[in-house]
């Protein structure tokens, strides 16, 4: 079980219709790879974020499958088209079944 997991997302507050914006996301998470051993030589069990998705008003922007090779505090940067005013919805899926969510509104004006 990962503790202190906190998603952080950077989305511009406004855009023009049809504009392509850059979104930066980071979630603090140890991303324990399952390859490391503790001081007694026991394997530390894998515990990672295995999937990340971003949707806008119910339409998918990106859906990423993450593997243990992704660094601690997984960072994903990508671009999205903004057709109208609405909300970006971000979801991170943990190995332990938790789903972390964050939402960011954007105004088209």
């Amino acid at each position: 079980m990962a503790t202190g997991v906190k998603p952080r997302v950077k989305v511009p507050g406004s855009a023009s219709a049809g504009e392509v914006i850059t979104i930066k996301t980071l979630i603090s998470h140890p991303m324990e790879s399952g390859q490391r051993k503790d001081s007694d030589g026991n394997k530390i069990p894998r515990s990672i974020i295995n999937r990340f998705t971003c949707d806008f008003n119910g339409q998918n922007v990106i859906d990423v499958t993450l593997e243990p090779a992704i660094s601690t505090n997984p960072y994903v940067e990508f671009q999205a088209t903004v057709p109208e005013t609405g909300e970006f919805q971000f979801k991170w899926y943990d190995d332990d079944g938790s789903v972390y969510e964050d939402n960011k509104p954007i105004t088209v004006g």
Partner: protein
Amino acid sequence: MSFLPMRANAEAVDDLIAAFTGGAEMGDAGVDLNAPEIAENGNTVPVEVSAPGAKAILLLAAGNPTPPVAQFNFGPLAGSQTASTRIRLAGTQDLIAIAQLGDGTFARTSKTVKVTIGGCGG
């Protein structure tokens, strides 16, 4: 520190590629992979994949204990078929990116990254 021998991994990489492409031929054009030539710290190596019009991009690290790194699937609202992240590399090795392009064909590219400090435990 123990790593799987590269040769055993080559088979795993081939299997992963076959699972993604369904055994289809791969072209050279249409996919870009940006990574530093030399990474001082294998724990966090910035990489960027890009394939205009692609549906999905698979990223593999051929020399890691487990080669899969990430698969990016782009939805209808993706502003471009580009994504950046930070990855772990166990040592100097080849990164491989394979894109499923808009017309259903596949493209492959690879890049060697020199790693001075490995990033997969040990």
